């Protein structure tokens, strides 16, 4: 079984990277770890009450969870495990410790700015992955055209 680290931004589109893991590691069972960079709260209350599980539940939306479940069903013969981990460190040393705990040597990362992190408490872990993992496969993937539904506003009323 091969354990593969894949960065995620909790969008359905980011799960496409898992399919690239399947393509790049054929004929082997996969243990996928989806990693998300998260900054710990900077106050004592937040730190003492921090729970990774609760934070992940807050971050993961319904469509993402549903798409992840379907993905596992689609490739059930290949994907044996899939889980989400938060990386809360600040530097490469922290990331190396994190890797040691996870015991992972392979990773799939997107080329360029495929992942979107709009929240100030989140960050892209691709940089740490590329720097610290031996076998990193970069996927030249492009974001699809998703047009969010415009909410009603007075400006949109006048703006044809």
């Amino acid at each position, binding site marked *: 079984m091969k354990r593969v680290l894949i960065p995620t931004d909790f969008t359905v589109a980011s799960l*496409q990277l898992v*399919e690239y893991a399947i393509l790049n590691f054929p004929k082997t069972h996969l243990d996928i770890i989806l990693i998300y960079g998260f900054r710990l709260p900077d106050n004592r209350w937040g730190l003492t009450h921090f729970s990774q599980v609760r934070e992940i539940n807050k971050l993961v939306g319904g469509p993402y969870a549903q798409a992840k479940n379907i993905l596992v069903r689609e490739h*059930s*013969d290949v994907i044996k495990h899939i889980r989400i981990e938060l990386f809360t460190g600040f530097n490469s040393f922290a990331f190396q410790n994190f890797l040691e705990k996870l015991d992972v040597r392979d990773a799939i990362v997107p080329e360029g700015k495929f992942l979107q992190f709009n929240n100030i408490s989140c960050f892209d872990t691709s940089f740490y992955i590329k720097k610290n993992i031996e076998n990193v496969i970069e996927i030249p993937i492009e974001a699809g055209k998703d047009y969010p539904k415009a909410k009603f506003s007075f400006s949109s009323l*006048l703006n044809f």
Partner: protein
Amino acid sequence: MSLRIRRAESMQLRTKITAIFILLTGLFQIAIFLLIYFVSQNYTESEFYLRLSQRATIAARAYLEEDEVNIDIYDDIRIRHLQTLPEEKEVIYPVDAENKKPLTPFDSSLPGTFFQSVFQREYAEFKRDDYYYTGLLYHHDEGDFIVVLSARDLYGIGKMDNLRNTLTIAFVVSLVFISIFGYYYAKRALSPIYRMIKKANTIKAENLSLRLDTEDGQGELSELSHTFNNMLDRLQISFDLQSNFINNASHELRNPLTAILGQTEIALSKERTIAEYRATLNNIDLEASRLDSLVNGLLKLAKTDFDARGLVIEELRLDQILIEIKQNLDVANPSNRIKLNFDSLPVDEHALTLLGSETLIKVALSNILENATKFSDNKTVTAKLLADGDHILLIITDEGVGIPSEELKNIFEPFYRGSNVRDLEGFGFGLPLAYRIVKLHSGEIRVSSQIGKGTIVKIKLPIQESNGY
């Protein structure tokens, strides 16, 4: 010519929208302004009558009191504090209130009804030209009196003139602005239609893959674009099916024809015995019979694509279709290694049933599976079928040459062929046709591919209940 007519019509529509907008707003404004004007006028008049009646009361009390000092006080108050109203006049008539008769003659210029009202209700109002009259019946120890007080409301007239002028100017100015903004917004509202007309005019048989922009995402115009694009999809599928049919037909017809031509050429190259001619004719007959059955088969195929009403839409079981495709591909290419994976099939067969055209779905899935086999050099291709309640999912995974990432966005363009497969046989419309057929069935198709590693094609089709037909 037709373009010019259409443009003229759309110009009229813009002008029409602007005119209706101006007319409705103008009428509404006129109604509101008239209401404001008349309510104000009514209020001003009521206010003036009130003032007149108060002054009439004061005048009656002052003049009819015995004490002469009161008259002086009244005059003093009136001059100093109350100010005299413009052209103010008081007249006091002694009357017999019981018999409703005047003891001195009334002013003949005032109507008799005015005095009758005073007798009846003890108070009456009357207006003639700019003059306002109030009449008050005053009972006193010395007898009854009618106090008539009249004045001009110059202040009220000025106020009403000012209001009328303000409202007229406001109406004209707002009408100008409404016209400008109305015309501008009508133009802007219709501009997507002009863009659509312009784009639609560029779409011809040679570039049928062009589509109208739908990125606005909302509203009726977006729906119109989608509808138009769907129509183009259907048109293009028809075109491509014809091309597909012609290509297949020419390919299939060529073999027996080549055989016939070869036989005749050999037979005519020198003198032959009757037996040899007979053998040649037999061979030609055999090939011609093959040709005949082939033509009949092709005609049947062509007929099954569309019936007299258009596409034949029916309930389809995708697992059965896949099995049939696999059987056909096994005949055409016995060395293929397509594996159908039905491990995750749902128990409920409705979860695998969709509404659609069997021929089209078969064409689409055959094209994708053929491509997977062709571009993976007959390596293992897995087709896994599963359902998520609302959709049927088909995942086709191959270990082929893959598609360069920068070319992934072009693979659904007709006649586009990947840079790494140009030496392989093909026309480049298999995948685009499959893409449009899936779209026509309200489905989605997505491709992940890694060069040298393989490709995953994911097809998502809505099940019967939620199908977009």
